[in-house]
């Protein structure tokens, strides 16, 4: 009896160790399998739909007091776009810079910084959450994206707003590393979704995306596109860059970054 128990125990031990080892190597194999990644990606789809259901009433992200602002707001990703065109714009305080709004709109338009500053503005002190895990609190002032969209008129066919940026995070020669982001109209018309030209009461500095950056509160940091040059309204994302709706999305991150 004892012998049988011992062998059983031994078997369980060997089995457990074997199962553990198999599990680990198996998980790495599953992590490299596109079809399995697609399968577990349904978890993210579920998260997106669950959050959209809960956010149906368009609640605001928490806004903080001025005393809550981070002493130093970390600049992540690009801190200075490496392009002569950008430097030329920056030299004159972006006075020659124009934001182009085009695509599926009633009237494509261009706005200079002064035009944007003359529009209704919103100031919000919000928390910026990086996908890596850290957070910083900053104050943002800018034009509600909804105002710009109403000004140009959104075509009924439009589903997404794409933000084209000046920074080439991969320093690519062909522009394939140019930063871009996209959101859908649900987030685009949220009152806290603004194109910010000021941060903590001062003009937006270059490390934080001058002259204009997107604030789409309720989503993670990589959605907050900096150095925005162009806003495009589109009906699909699969024909832009690698087709997943953003620079980091094309590199494996989720398009919906609410979690």
């Amino acid at each position, binding site marked *: 009896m004892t012998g049988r128990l011992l062998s059983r125990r031994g078997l369980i031990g060997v089995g457990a160790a074997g199962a553990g080892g198999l599990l680990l190597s198996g998980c790495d194999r599953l*992590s490299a399998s596109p079809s399995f990644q697609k399968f577990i990606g349904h*978890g993210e789809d579920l998260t997106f739909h669950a959050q959209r259901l809960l956010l149906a009433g368009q609640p605001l992200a928490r806004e903080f007091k001025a005393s809550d602002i981070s002493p130093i707001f970390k600049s992540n990703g690009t801190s200075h776009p490496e392009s002569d065109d950008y430097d030329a714009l920056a030299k004159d305080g972006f006075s020659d810079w124009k934001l182009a709004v085009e695509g599926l709109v009633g009237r494509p338009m261009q706005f200079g910084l002064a035009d944007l500053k003359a529009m209704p503005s919103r100031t919000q002190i919000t928390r910026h959450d990086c996908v890596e*895990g850290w957070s910083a609190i900053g104050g943002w002032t800018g034009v509600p994206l909804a105002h710009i969209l109403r000004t140009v008129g959104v075509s009924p066919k439009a589903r997404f707003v794409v933000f084209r940026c000046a920074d080439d995070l991969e320093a690519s020669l062909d522009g394939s590393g140019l930063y871009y982001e996209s959101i859908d109209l649900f987030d685009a018309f949220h009152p806290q979704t603004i194109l910010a030209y000021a941060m903590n009461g001062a003009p937006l500095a270059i490390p934080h995306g001058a002259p204009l950056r997107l604030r789409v509160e309720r989503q993670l940091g990589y959605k907050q596109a900096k150095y925005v040059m162009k806003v495009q309204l589109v009906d699909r994302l699969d024909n832009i860059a690698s087709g997943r709706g953003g620079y980091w999305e094309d590199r494996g991150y989720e398009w919906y970054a609410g979690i």
Partner: protein
Amino acid sequence: MTTELTAPPLAPRGAARAGRETIYRHTVVVRITHWINVLVISLLLMSGLNILNAHPRLYWGQFGADFDKPWIEAPGLRRPDGQLEGVLRLGGRQFTTTGFLGVSKGADGADLIQGVPSWATLPSERNLAVARRWHFFLAWLFVINGAVYLLIGLINGHFRRDVALTRADVRPGNICRNILDHIFLRHPVGEEAKRYNVLQKATYLIVIFALLPAMVATGLTMSPGFDAVAPWLLNLFGGRQSARSIHFICANLIVLFVIVHVVEVLLAGVWNELRSMITGRYVIKTERGA
């Protein structure tokens, strides 16, 4: 279905042995949800550690980033001689942890600056996007599995009957005796072996109703989308970075629970315990020494 720890003895299979009795200890729901949890929590932990490696520093409060003061961090430093040194900084002290925390070997055997080692993470290489996809997929499984377990446990009376503390459980004398029983590894026999003891109950209550729900709640507090839905979570945990710290601490407490749990299983008789969680049948001794 409602028969569990306190069930009448089953007819013994094969030859009945004197002084022993086979009871039906765990319902099929408990057994299935238990093993799903074993798999899911293990993988949640490992994918969570991969996510932690993206920023192996933890803070208290609403915000916290590179320029703010962490209460714990596991950085890799380059010493003057060029060698990499992994350290753990905690409570103003610094411990050298090269090979484990801060700096450890990657898949190719070379030293890497990483908070926790590759063997503990899912995937083993540094990949935040894939780790997040695993983590959130598993989190849904964990929540669904936990919801089934809680719902059935409430409906069939499992919690009330087997896990809730009774007046007799919480008598100081009983608690002291139980602590001594655990210290001297004295395992219960007879009717007592058919019930969870007070320390078991208290532990299970904390894990089921505090630690595991806290993991879900702190996880959700880290979601900027969910914070807009339930901003009170930020008040409850004292901010997103506090929630991230509590998420980490609770994960460690769950690991501690699992270690103690497995040690107790080994001490109490691994085959009997394992069988009770696979087939439901559990053999108890009807008297000491049997």
